[in-house]
């Protein structure tokens, strides 16, 4: 366990989720090599530390999504650099861009193919509510076809905003326990941005 100084890593690695500050202060990790925590917390931690997103971009927002993966924002800090081209290997789908009615059945299929537990971030105004395109050809928000955990506002959201959304999702995942992802936190997603 690499977590030695809770202050330095606060907000990023969240050592509190695994060890209480007292345990850390007593230096238990270094001495015995044993960490005591609840299963719920361990699972939540593990899920957030390597959440693989599907390699799936729709429109302009996908450009900013790819920027999020590169040097400046660097999503890989959270074990997320591995965008999976196959939905069957991914935990997270970032709906980055406008969703047309022609595409809607496809995205539903991709979502259904992802193994559980799975999460959805709706990135950008188009994916969240249709954005500037209010017409017949577009689904007015991807939550009409798949359940969304976090909505990130912006057209396009900056990479920092997407990062904020991802961190929010991590928070949520850590809090929801082992099968809480099935609940969707009472049915409505978090909005950030």
């Amino acid at each position, binding site marked *: 366990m690499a977590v030695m100084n809770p202050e330095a890593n606060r907000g990023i690695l969240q050592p509190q989720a695994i060890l209480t500050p007292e345990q850390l202060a007593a230096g238990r990790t270094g001495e015995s090599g044993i960490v005591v925590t609840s299963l719920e917390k361990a699972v939540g931690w593990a899920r957030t530390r390597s959440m693989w997103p599907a*390699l*799936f*971009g*729709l*429109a*302009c927002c*996908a*450009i*900013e999504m*790819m*920027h999020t*993966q*590169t*040097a*400046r924002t660097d999503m890989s800090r959270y074990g997320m650099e591995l965008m999976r*081209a196959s*939905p069957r290997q991914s935990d997270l789908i970032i709906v980055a*861009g*406008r969703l*047309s*009615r*022609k*595409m*809607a*059945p*496809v995205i539903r299929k*991709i979502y259904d193919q992802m193994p559980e537990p799975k999460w959805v971030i709706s990135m950008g105004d188009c994916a969240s*509510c249709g954005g*500037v*395109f*209010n*017409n*017949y*050809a*577009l689904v*007015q928000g991807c*939550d*009409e*076809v*798949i*359940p*969304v955990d976090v*909505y990130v506002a912006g*057209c*396009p959201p*900056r990479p920092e905003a997407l990062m904020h959304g991802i961190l929010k999702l991590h928070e949520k995942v850590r809090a929801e326990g082992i099968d809480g992802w099935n*609940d*969707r936190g*009472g*049915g*409505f*997603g978090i*909005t950030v941005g």
Partner: protein
Amino acid sequence: MTIQTDVETAVLPAERAARAATRFGEKVRVDDEGAWVVEAASLPEVARALRDDFALDYLINLTCVDWPDRFETVYHMASIQGGPPLCLKVAADKAKPIVPSLTGVFAGADFQEREVYDMFGVRFAGHPNLRRILMWEGFAGYPLRKDWREAYYEDDNKPLKSRWPEGDFFFGEDKIADWDDNIKYPSGYQAEGVESSRADDNIVVLDADELHRAPSGSERLIVNMGPQHPSTHGVFQMRLTLDGETVVDLQPVMGYMHRNHEKIGERNLWLGNMPFTDRLDYLAQLGNEWGYALTVEKLMGLEVPERAEYIRVILAELNRIQSHFWSITFLLNDIGAFFTPMMYAIEERELILDLFEMATGSRLMCNYMRFGGLAYDLPEEFLTMAQTLVDDRLERAIDEMDAYLSGNEIVLERMQGVGVLPPDMAINFSTSGPVLRASGVPYDVRRAEPYGVYDRFDWDVVTRPEGDVFARYMVRVGEMRQSLRILKQALRDLPGGEIMGGKKAWQIRVPAGQAYGRVENPRGELGFYCVSDGKANPYRYHVKSPCFVNLTALAEMTKGHKVADTVAILGSIDIVLGEVDR
């Protein structure tokens, strides 16, 4: 093949018009705007004669206008040697619109005619595959017809009141629902309808006999690549017919990102379209804006102040560099150098996006140009930063890319001799941009019909003779260097003064008329065809997308290659789906 790029020596359509009028007699009438109104039945004949005898060998745009009394298909033809295009118009009956297809004369008419059929329901007699292209097969109605009202969204009082006519809206936060309610459909929306019609379009049922009729006796296979596939650059589908691993046929299926930009454009106010153009080809935002501004300026007869013209050049060329960085490294992604070159390219791109943000307030969706100028002037620090970037950084970055990538053995192996497009075909397929120039045709709108202040700079049109994937890659690398050359001159000569011409007005009045404006975008010739009837919104607003038209040649390029090569070939065309599907 020898090609002239000197504009002066190219014959202008005005002169041609006089000569040609006598030749076609009754079949052609020249209208007051200089467009030729051609009799429907003689269209192919006239087009062929124009192509062969009058050197108008390059069809750059094809679209349609729905007038109250007729449909009018519109064609813009230009000479590959440069000069402004000639506009041809053909009237079709309102009740049963049929126009002869031009696919026999220009292969590039194929997708554009399908688009007109899809959107207007005009049938093209003699078209080999007249099916819907952007909407799915089985979709009811023709969305761009004026009498087609959008179910659920559209109201008679366009353009501002259409979204919630009943004023009945809610905030997402107020909505507490359980899992099931999180999935909601607008009333009257039939999910099954979408499913089944999609199936019509995408699942081809073949009988076993046909499958076994392959020449080698082997089994033919149909493989769908996309719309969710790592190499399709967005949601694009290729339906490959394979014999073993060799591609026998390829059918592009698109429209997965179609939101009918043109329909939205026709209900927006003129200026309200400006931010939407950013969202067409989102890697070339400022180029798109320029194209639209240019077209409307033509209609309004506006002069743009010199400073604004220079700033437009500076931003458009920076745009070209960042876009080419993206496309060459994406091409490398496609042939297996996954994401490493990309990381380096995006590092440079970020710096250019910073400049955009500084100048316009946004990284991607700039919304910076206005009719007659720009929204606001550059901030002071912009110039020093741009200067440093251009002088010290970008050149080195391009050289570095070039040095590490272009000579790589795997790159050469995968790219050379793959997806060859000969020059005559490239012209006939109406391709433009790097795809056309990589086939050895030095056609660049900045030279062929200079706009802005491009005629003042010293730069070269980059071409390569081979016409393969590698040539397209190298043309892009070369163009980045030329852009730097232009940038250096533009930054040096940037004059002071106004950034907005004409007098300030709250309402933009666009006089009735029509105009076709075009700019050289990183992906090729982007054209806007706007028709005004003097009202607050455009009567017709058409975007000629270079990616969409370049895709017409995709099948031709891939036939006979292996599956893996189609990925490289598609990457070398460099499509942006936001613009293909509009």
